[in-house]
């Protein structure tokens, strides 16, 4: 036993009986998909903005964080007083948070990005970083530097264990809602006129304008959808882990950004695939290698992918614009 102890984590998962091994694998997969679904939702915001504006919106993680805080505030203040059933409260909190963050997204675009649209890309990125710092500190001043927690009554504690695999209602909700939103978004972009306009704008602003598309309007729509999805992900995350902090936007933003690159930035299905893949890789890395080395593992894969396929998994090779 002694020799096994030092690397218990690394060995443990391999040494189990076959059936248990399968159960562990499935549980890791479920957990990975849950985290991955959150990454995907946030990654969509990065990828849509990049696709249309060629801008890496570093403030996106903070929209996500603010969404989480707003949902929390709604639940503990206004909705806690009401006599609505729990599901209605949760829906309302999510919708209000989504609406508010969408509005904030449009505002940020108008104030921090539009004046810089003609300047170099670097300037816009610096502006995005500035917005990120501003939002983070604002959140710290409003809600305090301590950890906040979604109240216990707000989280439906329903768990199942079919065949020994533990699944909670929250996990199914997160996966289900994310999947529905992503499919909905994909349909919207592929099948509607507005979606066609978004795709046209992503290809070339000037040509799109010549075709009669209001590019400013399209960008505004992007900044309604992206932060809105981020806010939903924020509320879901808050309900899942219960603990929220003003720095959460940075860590999840970084992971989601990685997911977007992994899938091929600018590509909507790519963000979904990238997010899910990242979530699963993380869990398997933590489960079968070592929890402490999980991030090393994930970023190693990212580096390898960027070396051998720089455009990401689903990204297409685009000719450099002149």
């Amino acid at each position, binding site marked *: *036993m*002694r020799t096994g*102890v*030092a690397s*218990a*984590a690394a060995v*443990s*998962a391999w040494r*189990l009986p076959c059936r*248990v091994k399968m159960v*562990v694998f499935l*549980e*890791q997969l479920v*957990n*990975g998909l849950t*985290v991955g679904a959150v990454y995907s939702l946030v990654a969509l915001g990065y990828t849509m903005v990049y696709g249309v504006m060629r801008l890496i919106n570093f403030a996106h993680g903070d929209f996500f964080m603010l969404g989480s805080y707003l949902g929390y505030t709604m639940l503990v203040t206004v909705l806690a007083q009401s006599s609505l059933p729990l599901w209605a409260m949760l829906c309302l909190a999510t919708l209000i948070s989504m609406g508010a963050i969408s509005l904030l997204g449009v505002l940020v675009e108008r104030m921090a990005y539009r004046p810089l649209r003609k300047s170099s890309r670097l300037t816009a990125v610096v502006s995005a970083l500035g917005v990120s710092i501003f939002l983070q500190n604002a959140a710290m001043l409003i809600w305090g530097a*301590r*950890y906040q*927690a979604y109240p*216990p009554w707000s*989280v439906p*504690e329903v*768990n199942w*264990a079919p065949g020994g695999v*533990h699944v*909670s209602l929250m996990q199914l909700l997160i996966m289900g809602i994310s999947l529905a939103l992503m499919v909905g978004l994909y349909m919207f972009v592929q099948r509607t006129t507005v979606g066609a306009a978004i795709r046209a704008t992503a290809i070339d602003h000037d040509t799109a304008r010549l075709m009669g598309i209001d590019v400013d309007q399209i960008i505004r729509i992007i900044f309604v959808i992206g932060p809105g999805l981020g806010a939903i992900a924020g509320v879901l*995350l808050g309900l899942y*882990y*219960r*603990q929220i*902090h003003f*720095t*959460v936007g940075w*860590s999840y933003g970084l992971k989601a950004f990685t997911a977007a690159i992994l899938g091929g930035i600018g590509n909507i299905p790519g963000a979904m695939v990238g997010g899910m893949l990242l979530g699963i890789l*993380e*869990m*398997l*890395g*933590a*489960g079968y290698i*070592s*929890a*402490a080395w*999980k*991030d090393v593992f994930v970023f190693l894969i990212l580096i390898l992918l960027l070396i051998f396929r720089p455009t990401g998994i689903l990204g297409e090779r685009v000719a450099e614009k002149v």
Partner: protein
Amino acid sequence: MKRSRSGLLLIAVALVMSLSFGYYVMAAKEPIRIGLQAPITGPWAYEGEMARNCVQIVADEVNKAGGLLGRPVEIVLGDDQGSPKQSALVAQRMVSDKVAAVVGTYGSSINDPASAIYERAELVNIAYGSTAEKLTEQGRKYFFRTCFRDDKQGAFFAAFAVDKLKAKRVAIIHDNTTFGKGLAEAARRPILEQKKAEIVFYDAITPGERDFTAILLNMGKQNPDVLYFTGYYSEAGLIIRQMRTLGIKATFVGGNAAVNDEFVKIAGLNMAAGALQTQEPLPTDLDYPQSKTFLAEYIRRHKEPPSSPWPVYAADAFKAIAAAIEGSGSTDSKVLMNYLRNSLKDYPGITGPISFDAIGDREGAIYLAYEVTADGKFVPLR
């Protein structure tokens, strides 16, 4: 102009005289001066203030009983502001003030530079809140402490888990910080040596993360009876919640940074209830007669008990010095050092019997296991 200035001077002198008059009465015989180095201002000001209150109580007690060797004692206060730089300055001042010995200080990294200076000046100094192991591992002869080392807590957990919880399979998770890793190692060592229980899982998490399901799943498949988590409350709250959701029934035990109000808030009371923590006893939970009278006096003066365990160790450091002076009949630092090291055995301190081992650490280890009750209170498990 000249007259008014000398007039002012006269008033000032008179003022100083009248202020120190109280001391002059007792100082018919010259007082024995004992230093107290504490963070009276700065980030730990609250801790420093409580330490001063505690030491004042025991000093007053000594004076009321006729002082030491027939001489009154006097506290010389030095504020190190919780900063290493200020700490060195305070130490130098204590040395030039020729105090008999020093009580202090709180933080381990603050203590280090000061105790180096005391060592050079051959001045006995007894720390009350510095728990880092390395402080007594540097071969300093004049350094002692009344608080216990971090590794004693690990040993306490090992004994507690095996003997009290009857655990056969123990899992340990730390957070890779110096403190967390040190405590985890210290808890693992005795369990491996005694072979009464097995360490079935030992791994680290990254602080700041939120999802620990992967590591907890691996742990759960080893069927541990007890999980010892030696990190901080923010992760501890998430860990207990996630492991309960995964259906892992192992008893959760936290190190002394893991379980507090925030832990309960993050985990939710339904999950947090029943969680245990190894910790220094809070002043209100000390069971000795001398601690009861001390606590009553503290509450009489300050309306509430000290909120952390540390200030009481400062009072005990003062008591140890007083006992050494009385017992050896001398205020010479070398004599005091030898007395503390060799002759002071099981002196009844407020936090329990005090004896020092060969490197200046306090012998024994008095820790308690605290439990989170169903209504979110922390009570010692007896």
